[in-house]
C-alpha cells in the first residue's frame, strides 16, 4: 500500500482550476520531493490530502484512508507552511499539547529531537524567532515516529547546521521504511534528500522522475570564450541549446545535444579561446523542463 495515492485528483476554486487530474503515488520508504513555483498547486494538493479541502473530483488516500477520516492521523505527521502556533504557550507546553492530542508519544525521544535541533523549549513561542519556532513544529512532526510525514516548506528560517540535522532526520525516517512527502521550491534541498521528485505547474503534474534519472539527462552547462561575436542565428541549426546567453566574447548555454556540432558552429564564426563545461544543476534541468512543458 502506498502511503499517498491519488487518481484524477482535481480541485477548482470557483472556476479556477487549482489542481487538474493529479495522479500521484508516494511509495513506502522514500522521500518524495514535490516541486513547483508559488501558486502551482502544491499547498492545495496537501490541503486536499489533509482533508482541509474537498476535491472537486478524483480520489485520494493517505495511509490507506480517505483524507477526511481521522484514525490514520495517528500515523501521520504534518507541518503546514508559514507555521502558526499559540504565542502564549512555551515550546514544551506546545509539544505536550500535541502529545496529548495523539497519545503514546515517547517524551524522551521528543527531548532528544529538541537537543539535536537545538530547540528552545522553555520560552514562549511568541518570543521565538521564525527558525526556533520552526524547530518546535519539526519536533511535533517527528516525535511520534509517524509512518508518513507531510512537510510543506519545512526549512523556513532554519540555519544551515539545523538544515543538515533536519535532512539527516528525514533520511533516518526512510531508512526506517517510513515515507516523507516534501513540498518545496528549494531545489537544493530536494536534490540533496529526495529519492523521487514530482513537478507541478498550473495545477498539472508535468513530470515524476527519480532524482538520479534527472541527473542522467546529461544536460551540461557550457561556457565558451571566443574572439569575435556570435549572433543567435549562427547557432540556430544546433539542436539541444537551451537558455542561450550571448555576450561580447562569451557564450553561455545549457546543452544536451552533439558537442561537435556546437563547436563547429561556434568556430565557423569566431575563434575559440576557451571552453568550460560541467554537469548542470538540478535547478537548471528543472527550469529547462519547466519551460518545455509550459
Amino acid at each position: 500500500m502506498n502511503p499517498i495515492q491519488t487518481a484524477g485528483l482535481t480541485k477548482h476554486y470557483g472556476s479556477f482550476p487549482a489542481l487538474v487530474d493529479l495522479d500521484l503515488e508516494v511509495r513506502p520508504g522514500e522521500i518524495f520531493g514535490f516541486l513547483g513555483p508559488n501558486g502551482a498547486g502544491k499547498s492545495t494538493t496537501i490541503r486536499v490530502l489533509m482533508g482541509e479541502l474537498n476535491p472537486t473530483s478524483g480520489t485520494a488516500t493517505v495511509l490507506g484512508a480517505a483524507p477526511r477520516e481521522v484514525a490514520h492521523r495517528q500515523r501521520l505527521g504534518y507541518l503546514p507552511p508559514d507555521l502558526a502556533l499559540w504565542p502564549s504557550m512555551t515550546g514544551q507546553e506546545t509539544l505536550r499539547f500535541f502529545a496529548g492530542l495523539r497519545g503514546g508519544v515517547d517524551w524522551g525521544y521528543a527531548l532528544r529531537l529538541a537537543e539535536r535541533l537545538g530547540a528552545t523549549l522553555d520560552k514562549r513561542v511568541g518570543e521565538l524567532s521564525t527558525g526556533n519556532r520552526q524547530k518546535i513544529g519539526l519536533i511535533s512532526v517527528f516525535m511520534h515516529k509517524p509512518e508518513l510525514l507531510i512537510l510543506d516548506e519545512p526549512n523556513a528560517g532554519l540555519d544551515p547546521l539545523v538544515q543538515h540535522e533536519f535532512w539527516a532526520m528525514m533520511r533516518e525516517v526512510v531508512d526506517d521504511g517510513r515515507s516523507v512527502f516534501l513540498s518545496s521550491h528549494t531545489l537544493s534541498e530536494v536534490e540533496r534528500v529526495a529519492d523521487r521528485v514530482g513537478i507541478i505547474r498550473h495545477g498539472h503534474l508535468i513530470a515524476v522522475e527519480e532524482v538520479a534519472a534527472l541527473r542522467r539527462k546529461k544536460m551540461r552547462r557550457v561556457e565558451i570564450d571566443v574572439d569575435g561575436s556570435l549572433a543567435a542565428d549562427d547557432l540556430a541549426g544546433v539542436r539541444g541549446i537551451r537558455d542561450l546567453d550571448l555576450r561580447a566574447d562569451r557564450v553561455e548555454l545549457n546543452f544536451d545535444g552533439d558537442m561537435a556540432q556546437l563547436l563547429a558552429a561556434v568556430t565557423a564564426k569566431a575563434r575559440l579561446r576557451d571552453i568550460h563545461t560541467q554537469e548542470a544543476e538540478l535547478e537548471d534541468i528543472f527550469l529547462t523542463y519547466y519551460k518545455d512543458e509550459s
Partner: protein
Amino acid sequence: MNAAVLRRGLATGWKGLLVTAAVVAAMLVMALAIYAELDLSIYDKLPEAVRALMGVPHNADAAIIAYNEMLASIGALAFVGVAIAIGAQAVAGEEQDRTLHLVLAAPVSRVAYLLGRGAAMVLLLVAGGAVLWAAAELAPLVVGTEVGDAHLFALVAHLTACAVFHAALALAVGAATGRKGVAAGLAAAVMVLGWLGSGLLPLWREDAADWIPWTWFNGTKPLVNGVDGGHLALLLGGAAALIALGGIGFRARELRLAQSGSSLLARLKAGASALAVRPRRSAARHASPDPGGVSIEGRTPSLLGLRLAAQRGLLVSVVLLMGLLMGMAMPLMYEALSAAMGDFAGTFPQTMLDLFGGGDLGTPAGFLHLESFGMMLPAAVILVATVAASSGIAGEERLRRMSLLLAQPISRARVYATVAAASALYVLIVTVAMFLGTWAGIAMAGVDVSIANLAWACVLATLLGWFFGAFALLLSAATGRSSVAVWATTGLAVAGYFGYTLLLAAGEEASGWWSPFRAYLYGPPLMRGAEWWQPVWLAVGTVACLAAGLPLFLRRDLRITSG
C-alpha cells in the same frame, strides 16, 4: 471529546471571563452600596405587585434592584459579550490563527474538536457564573441589605444559560463559516437587539418579545419569581441545537486559508496578475525611470486607505446598527409607544435614569438619550476608535507587519498620525451616520427634538470617541500590546461611565469632573445642548493623549512577536 482540546479550551478563555466576572461582581457590590444610600422610598410606597413588576422581591429592600442593573442589564451584557468572544474564538478564531489546521492534523475529528471546545466553553461560563453567584450572595452581607425572597441563584442561573446560548450561537456560526467576525458580529447583534427588544416590545404588546432569547433570560424576572424551567430549557436546549447545527456545517465544509483576510482564490488571482505596489507619486517624481521594470496597473493603496479598510466589516456593522436601527428607528418607536411611555416613565425613579446617563423617558429627547445616546452611541464610538487605534500599531506588530512597513521610507510619526486619522475617521463616520439616521427618524416620526441639540450630541460623541481612540493609541504606541490598549481603554470607559453615573445618581454630579463621560453626558446634550467646557474637556484630553503617545512610539523598540 478530546481531553487535550478541552484543556486547551479552558486555558484560552478563563482569564478574560474571570476578569469580567470579577469586575461585574465588584460593580455589583459597589452599586448595591450606593443604592443602599439612595432615597428609594418611592418603591416602599408601591403595592407589592408593582414592586415585583419593578424587580423588587417580597420582603427585600428596594436597593436589591441594583441586581437588575448589574446582573440583568449592563453586567449581563458584559458577561454575555465575553461569552460570545469565547464562542467565536473556539473554532473560527483558531482557524483564523491557523492553529486549527494543526490540531485537526492529529487524530482528532472535527466533531470531537467541536465538542471539546464547546464543553470547555460551558465549563468556563459556569465558573464565571459561580463567581457572580458568590458575589451576589456576599454583597448583601457586606452592605447590610435585606434580600428577602430574592432568588439570587435563579438570576445567575438564567444569566449563565443566556451566556451559554449566545456563546453557542457564536461557536456554531464560527464552526459553520470559519469566519470569526461574522460569528461574533451576528451573536452580538442578537444580544444587543434582544436586550433592546425584550425591554421595548412588551410596551407595544405584552407577548411581543416572547420569542427573543434575552426574554428567556430575564423576561420572567427570575430574581423575583425564581427559576423558569421552560425558559432555561429554551436557552440550554437552543444552545445544544445550535452546536449540533454548527457541527453539521463544520463537518461538511472546507477549512479556510485565512491569510491576511483574503481568500485563496483572491491570492491565486493576485499572484497570477503579478500585482505590485506602486511608489508614491512624490517618490516616483524623484526616481529614475526603470526601463526593465514591469508596467504596473491598478489603484495604489495608501497607508490611510489600508488602515481604513482594515476594520471595514466592523465599521459597516456599527454604522448600520447606529444609523439605521438606533438612529432612524428609535424616534419612530417613541412615537408608537408615546402613550404607554408616559405611564411607564412615571414609575421610574430619577436615580435609576441617572444610572443610564440621565434624561427623561417622558420626552422624546430624553427617550432618545436613554435608549441611544446615553450608552449605545458612546459604546459604538469607543469600540470603533479603540479597535482602529490598537490594531493600527500594536496589532500590526502582533501580525509582524510593522517592521515591514517601517522598512519603507515611512516615518514612525507618519504611521502614528495615519492610525490616529483612521481612528478619528471611523468615529466621525459613525457619528455622522447617527446624526443623519436620527434626523431622518425625527422627521419621519414628527417628534419634537431640536436638531441643534442633536448636532451637539453628535459633536460630543465624536469628541468622546476621539478621546478614547487617542487613549487607546497612546497605550498601543507605548506598549505594542493590543491587549493592554483594549483592556485598559475598556477599563477606563467602564470606570468613567459608572463612576460618573453613580455620582450623578447620588447627587454628587460635580464630583465627576475627572470622567470624560461627564463632558459627554452633562445636560444631557440632546435635551439641553452643550456648555463650552464639554467639547474643550474632550478636545484637550484627546490632544494630550496624542501628544503623549507619539514620543513613546518614537523611542521604544518594536516588539518581537510571532504567531
